[in-house]
């Protein structure tokens, strides 16, 4: 990299924004570019100095009511002033109130008018685990069902069964059995990477999980929505639960995105990705995958589109895209698209460039026996093998 190439990146470098890895290397060695960085710093300091010189307290504007709350005063007059009401009108009003109260009590008696949304995580210290801390999310509409959860780490796991017994606006009755056990012999799926935990609702293995939890004590909690509830886990640790009760029919307030993780250098992470052209969503979020290793690549299958291949290095037929945290800007057929991911796509020091291509008409069922109708992400160890498989 020479000075001319590095120059446009010195400003974002000074501001601590992501720049290609070669830029800081060049600036470190080049006295001219270091001088430019110092000049920016000097200008910055002068700006702050000028700003501090022009600070002054602004007097309150004349249009703002000075004492108390004008609107509250208006309401206070409305509530406390006397008015004349005929007795007949009072009797009619009382009848209306009684009638409405009866109707209201009938409405309140209907079941499932409320639902409980909650999220929980493990109260882990970094000393206990260097993997990403998962956040589980649940949504309960009809109380009474058991929800078995598995949170797996390479060495140990937490099994939990939540049973929401009652949902009221101000109170949720929940019983929980939770136990920490060795991961060996546990019914679990393969983690996406050794350093990432796996978390799922596993209703298919409810019987096995209940058997493993046979000795776990069940505790019942009265949870007040909005508060934080710490649920001790038998065998060590705790589950931290936060939730709220919302009327049935409202959109979810808790995002259902997956575990948040930070990519390591040389990795690509796609976390519930969606493709967005001109602010309209093309697909539902896919799952999560991590591509690790020099030859690796990430694949993202999008129904009706095909297979996107993403890699940190150029590959035959690839184009360049710019990545900024969880956002990737790419061009297809001359149009701009954004690929949004729920966590950063590449590590900060990997630079803002990623390479991609789209294999149109790709059918996952032909190669991997996956569904053709749902978006999916998957990492591939060797991009060369993948290209041979796709193009013969």
């Amino acid at each position: 990299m020479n000075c001319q190439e590095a120059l446009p990146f010195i400003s974002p470098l000074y501001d601590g924004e992501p720049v290609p890895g070669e830029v800081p290397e060049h600036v470190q060695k080049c006295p001219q570019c270091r001088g430019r960085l110092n000049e920016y710093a000097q200008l910055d300091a002068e700006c702050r100095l000028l700003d501090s010189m022009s600070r002054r307290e602004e007097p309150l504007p004349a249009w703002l009511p000075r004492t108390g709350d004008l609107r509250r005063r208006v309401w206070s007059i409305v509530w406390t002033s006397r008015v004349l009401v005929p007795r007949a009108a009072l009797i009619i009003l009382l009848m209306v109130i009684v009638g409405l109260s009866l109707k209201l009590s009938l409405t309140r008696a209907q079941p499932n008018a409320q639902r409980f949304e909650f999220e929980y995580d493990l109260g882990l210290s970094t000393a206990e685990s260097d993997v990403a801390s998962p956040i589980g999310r649940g949504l309960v509409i009809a109380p009474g069902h058991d929800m078995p959860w598995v949170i797996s780490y390479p060495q140990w796991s937490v099994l939990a069964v939540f049973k929401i017994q009652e949902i009221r606006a101000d109170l949720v009755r929940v019983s929980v059995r939770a136990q920490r056990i060795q991961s060996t012999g546990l019914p679990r799926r393969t983690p996406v990477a050794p350093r990432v935990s796996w978390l799922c609702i596993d209703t298919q293995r409810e019987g096995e999980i209940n058997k493993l939890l046979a000795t776990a004590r069940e505790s019942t909690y009265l949870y007040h929505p909005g508060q934080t509830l710490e649920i001790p886990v038998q065998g060590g640790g705790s589950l931290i639960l936060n939730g709220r009760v919302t009327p049935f029919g409202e959109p979810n307030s808790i995002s259902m995105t997956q575990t948040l993780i930070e990519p390591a250098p040389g990795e690509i992470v796609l976390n519930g990705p969606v493709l967005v052209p001109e602010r309209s969503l093309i697909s539902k979020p896919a799952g999560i995958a991590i591509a690790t290793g020099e030859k690796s690549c990430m694949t993202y299958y999008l129904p009706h589109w095909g297979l996107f291949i993403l890699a940190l290095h150029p590959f035959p037929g690839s184009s360049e895209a710019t990545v900024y945290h969880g956002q990737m800007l790419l061009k297809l057929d001359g149009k701009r698209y954004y690929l949004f991911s729920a966590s950063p796509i590449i590590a900060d020091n990997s630079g803002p460039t990623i390479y991609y291509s789209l294999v149109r008409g790709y059918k996952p069922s032909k190669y991997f026996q996956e569904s053709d109708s749902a978006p999916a992400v998957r990492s591939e160890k060797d991009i060369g093998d993948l290209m041979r498989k796709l193009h013969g």
Partner: protein
Amino acid sequence: MTSDEELWRKVCQGDAEAFADFYRAYASPLRRFLHWYLGDLQAEEDVAQETFLELWRSPNGFNPARAPLKRYIFGVARKRAAEWWRRHPPALGKGAPEQAVPACEAGTLLASALAQLDPEARALLWLRQAEGYSYIELAEIFQIPLGTVKSRLFAARERLRQVWSGGIECS
């Protein structure tokens, strides 16, 4: 509940004391931002007052889940300032801020250098350097792509550096 949410809940209920607290906290930085954006004392006063009056009259436009309060009000003021510029297109040699500090005192040299930039670049650079906004926040306030924030900041810094190192005479 965050302090922004708490404050804005009170403002939405018509609590003038809460709005006065909000005004005291944000009026000065907003005026300084508008000073560099508009370069006209009367205009910055008018736009600042219009911005606050609009927020007092219709506070429901702010959603604490989407952005912090400060970024929201800078966004509202930025739109109003852009409208002002559309109504008063800059004539040649105009659009530079009127001197806020006495001539030849510290900072005047930089103020003169800043005056050489176009209003939006000046305001962008000011928010970045004096208020410390990130590129993504600046993109939201100015409603421009992230790449444009990068290129405009770079161009503004380069222009400022050239003017600065060229040595401007104090009047």
